[in-house]
């Protein structure tokens, strides 16, 4: 594990990487995403675990994405993700649609080093029709025919997210967002931005240890205050709805989006601190 700045963190992700990212509520590495966009990464295969929003929309709009695999791309109460919708209509990205539990199960299969995980549901849906990588078998545990879907394991090249806390040993504390642990276990490398780094050992902290990702899973950590802004970080800060409204407005058009991207994007509290 090494501590590094956001640009160096972003530089670790080569073009064409398969990158797992969390839902908008559970700690999105938004500032690291801007660093990725700045370095003009291309052809990413994004795996939303299991849904995503602003982060994917920015990356799509900036031309960084080849494929997005998700159960839902949405700006939640702010509506549709405009660049995602535009790209789908234009046919410029490849969309792998699925359902939330299928994505989670596939990542759990990656975590467990098994080739697939079965899941109930999906049969007779067009999701299944369009997923050539999913398989249907007869449940071998049943006495008579009982078709069930098998999902191939997902082993992302990277997991990328933002967490409240890391320690000086490279352990990362995630709180209740359990799927961050699953993602880190499943991915070949995990890159994390955090609000702060503390000088202790989280694994020896009886209270924090159960929600701590041990350092061996973590390839690099960057400190970035309000790193999820304008998305929320659980138990730390809420979404910045004004900023999200600004984005929705800007994202409606290609030129509005480009203007938005070219502006400085800093949380207001940090801008104030910097000015003062």
């Amino acid at each position: 594990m090494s501590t590094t700045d956001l640009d160096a963190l972003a530089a670790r992700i080569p073009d064409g990487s398969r990158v797992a990212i969390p839902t908008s509520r559970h700690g999105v590495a938004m500032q690291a995403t801007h660093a990725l966009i700045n370095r003009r990464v291309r052809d990413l295969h994004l795996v939303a675990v299991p849904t995503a929003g602003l982060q994917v929309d920015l990356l799509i709009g900036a031309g960084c994405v080849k494929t997005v695999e998700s159960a839902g791309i949405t700006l939640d109460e702010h509506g549709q993700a405009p660049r995602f919708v535009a790209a789908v209509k234009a046919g410029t990205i490849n969309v792998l649609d699925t359902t939330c539990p299928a994505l989670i199960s596939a990542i759990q299969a990656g975590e467990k080093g098994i080739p697939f995980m079965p899941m109930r549901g999906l049969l007779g849906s067009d999701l299944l029709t369009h997923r050539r990588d999913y398989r249907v078998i007869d449940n071998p545990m049943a006495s008579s025919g009982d078709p069930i879907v098998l999902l191939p394991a997902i082993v992302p090249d990277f997991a990328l997210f933002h967490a409240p806390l890391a320690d000086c040993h490279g352990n990362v504390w995630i709180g209740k967002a359990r799927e961050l642990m699953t993602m880190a276990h499943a991915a070949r490398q995990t890159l994390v931005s955090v609000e702060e780094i503390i000088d202790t050992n989280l694994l020896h902290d009886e209270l924090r240890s159960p929600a701590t990702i041990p350092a061996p899973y973590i390839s690099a950590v960057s400190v970035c205050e309000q790193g999820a802004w304008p998305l929320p970080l659980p138990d730390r800060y809420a979404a910045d709805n004004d900023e999200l409204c600004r984005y929705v407005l800007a994202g409606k058009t290609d030129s509005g989006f480009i203007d938005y991207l070219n502006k400085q994007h800093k949380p207001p509290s940090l801008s104030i601190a910097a000015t003062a």
Partner: protein
Amino acid sequence: MTTATNQPGFSREELLICVIARLLQGVDHIAVGVSSPIPGSAALLARAIAPSTTRVTVLNSRDLQDLNDGVSELFDQAAQGRIGAFFLSGGQIDGSGNINLVGIGEYPKMTVRWSGSFGSALLYYLVPRVILFRDEHTRRTMVDKVDFISAPGRSDSGIYRPGGPRALVTNLCAFRYDKQRGRFHLESIHPGHTLEEVLDQTGFEFDKPDTIPVTTAPEPERLTLLRTQLAALIADPYPAFAERVWKITALAR
């Protein structure tokens, strides 16, 4: 356009909440997805009038859920049979109960694209009592055949499917889902609306009785319950909704 002959003593939202609450009777554990204020309020009403063991989970709320194991927990609970009722909707819903949360046109390069299927392709199969709710009943939403099946209304025999649609509630009326026939059956039309209007706005065929009842108005004691005890509770997960419907803001913590 319809005109109510006299002013009812309840709002449209209150009516829908009470209609849905009746569909939740006897359910031990009702789970509610994000951004679902009317189903969520109905679930809380159902809990308030039910035995004390009835439980409501509202996703992403602070006080109305006890999920703490990441995104998978809700789906694992559903697959285990730990969830008795859930709510789904659709950009399109068709007469077979198929729902479409993906878009309009030919997949994948669709002319209209929505967010995606979320958990529907598991929950619709495994939760015993799924209530379909859509506040916009038009030929755009209630279609003969969905353009994309996020999850089907019915499955072939031999497919493991303990769950499925129980009812479809819209701003115009309430349908019961006939599992055997894989079709909707019109149960009642909401006060102020007509069969003509329903037929006009529905793109799919459905069964109906000879005489179609008017949807039962909210029970007075339930209305009182909603407006007194429950409004503040509902304001926790749905502040904008509670503010609009009952002019109430969430209790300070």
